């Protein structure tokens, strides 16, 4: 009887329209957020912050962005890496050109740049759908990466071709750059992700989210209701790219510290797509679960042989990881094509009845 909604009568539509209508959900989320703020900076080792928690948050943000586009608006995209790169390089240019600009403002503006590029590459979505569109987004992926590689201006003519996050502070604490602490970067990422996740949740449960899902589920019926396909899809591209852009900035400024275009290649586009699908298409929670899964699996896989006393050559280890990773994806799709979020929901329904299963 831990998880009960019986007896919680919603006396108004306001109550029913609330983001977490069930009290236990509200408590759970509040506790999770509080724990996320307090526990890791106190307890987690540098390794955990740097190798697990920060990438998890950054990827979760990107996954949120892609989920808005693919999971909610139904537009398959393989250009995520490209849009993230736009965010990262814009943030770098902004931060170095205007050293006094607040770093959070830099992130938000970098998102705007990514959104503009997203709109541009979203234009074909009016005429093409499904896999055809996915291939079109590959044009964005390859073209953008090529552009950042070719035009030295984007890297401030660095001979190495890398961009490096400069030292920047927020409320007096150093939060980016080589001298910032993992805790500070973690908390910044957490703050960004929390706000963006809340905004995403609000969007998808309102007018805009409904028009996205309408286009996704039945575009013809959506149109006769008054949904304008181009405008709706472009808005999805814009907002999704915005999220991805901020995530790209986060990838460099909060996680890697410095990066080349390689960090944004097609591989990352697929990685984020996996997160979204394994986590659950059309689910905000799923974006987080998927990101956690994809970040944790390689870590577990690379430590597992060691843990059971097996020593593998590095090459074999890499191949083994690829196989298990590929196999897991297939297995997952077979077991629950609607993703981890769906499994979570099923578990919740079970809990609701527990300990009286009937």
């Amino acid at each position, binding site marked *: 009887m831990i998880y009960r909604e019986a007896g919680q009568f919603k006396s108004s539509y*306001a109550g029913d329209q609330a983001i977490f209508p069930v009290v236990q959900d509200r408590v759970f989320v509040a506790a999770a957020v509080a724990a996320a703020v307090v526990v890791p900076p106190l307890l987690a080792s540098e390794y955990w912050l740097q190798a697990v928690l920060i990438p998890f948050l950054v990827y979760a943000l990107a996954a949120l962005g892609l989920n808005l586009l693919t999971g909610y608006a139904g537009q398959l995209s393989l250009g995520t890496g490209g849009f993230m790169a736009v965010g990262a390089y814009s943030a770098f240019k902004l931060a170095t050109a205007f050293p006094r600009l607040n770093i959070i403002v830099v992130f938000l503006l970098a998102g705007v740049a990514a959104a503009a590029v997203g709109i541009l590459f979203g234009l074909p979505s009016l005429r093409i759908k499904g896999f055809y569109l996915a291939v079109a987004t590959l044009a964005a992926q390859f073209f953008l990466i090529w552009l950042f590689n070719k035009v030295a201006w984007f890297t401030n003519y660095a001979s190495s071709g890398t961009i490096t996050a400069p030292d920047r502070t927020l409320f007096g604490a150093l939060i980016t750059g080589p001298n910032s602490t993992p805790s500070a970067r973690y908390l910044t990422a957490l703050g960004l992700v929390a706000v963006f996740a809340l905004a995403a949740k609000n969007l998808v449960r309102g007018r805009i989210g409904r028009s996205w899902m309408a286009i996704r589920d039945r575009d013809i019926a959506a*149109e006769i209701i008054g949904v304008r396909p181009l405008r709706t899809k472009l808005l999805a591209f814009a907002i999704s790219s915005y999220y991805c852009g901020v995530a790209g900035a986060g990838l460099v400024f909060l996680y890697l510290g410095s990066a080349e275009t390689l960090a944004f290649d097609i591989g990352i586009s697929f990685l984020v797509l996996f997160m979204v699908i394994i986590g659950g298409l059309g689910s905000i929670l799923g974006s987080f679960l998927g990101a956690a899964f994809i970040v944790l699996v390689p870590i577990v896989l690379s430590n597992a042989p060691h843990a059971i006393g097996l020593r593998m050559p590095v090459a074999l280890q890499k191949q083994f990881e690829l196989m298990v990773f590929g196999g897991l994806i297939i297995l997952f799709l077979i077991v629950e094509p609607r993703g981890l979020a769906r499994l979570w929901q099923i578990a919740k329904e079970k809990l609701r009845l527990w300990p009286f299963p009937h």
Partner: protein
Amino acid sequence: MKGSAAAPPLLEVDRVSVRFGALIAVNRVSLSVARGEIVAIIGPNGAGKTTLLNAVSGFYRPYEGTIAFEGQDRTRLAPPDVAALGIARTFQNVALFKGMSVLDNIMTGRLLKMRGSFLLEALYWGPARRQELEHRAFVERIIDFLEIQAIRKTPAGRLPYGLQKRVELARALAAEPKLLLLDEPMAGMNVEEKEDMCRFILDVNQEFDTTIALIEHDMGVVMDVSDRVVVLDYGRKIADGPPAAVRKDAAVLDAYLGVAHDA
């Protein structure tokens, strides 16, 4: 008939043709629907009924002819513009948003009544929140009216067929349309469901003062609900008049031989 002779008809289809390659699916059909009327469009399968509705909805471009709504030429509008005029419809093969709950489906029907900016909505703050609640209240009235309270939160794709048709009607009603186009609203329903649907259609017409054009095969239903019947066959209009008269029309009997009997 309820429409007055002086005012222009709500919908005026004038010698409209629709072609698919060599096939002329709708052939110089004229049809007018007066305010407040319930018009039934009947005809054998493939007669061009759905195609005619699609032309009115803006999905297909007429090859010739004009379509006017409230006296204005509206021949070349895109579907969202047609919706903005106050025309809503349902589809022959239910076109619900399967991944969304019944409530969300119907809320989507209110889309054109809603305003807002994505920033406010991202915050779910002030006007955005108020608007959402207002429309929720309206949608709840439709839910009560169509007696679908129990399935509010169910994903539309999981409902049985008859209920899906009802939800689709609810979604169309949510737009508060002036003209409601229903494509075979009772196809595949059992007798009881059909009776319910008939009642809803008549109630909608009376209580909300909505003009309705519907396609239907069941002659009994057609006779019961419609003020006027239009008959299509091979893309042409072959009869147009009160149900009782059309029923006796020789051309109609010809076209319908067999169909009318099992209906």
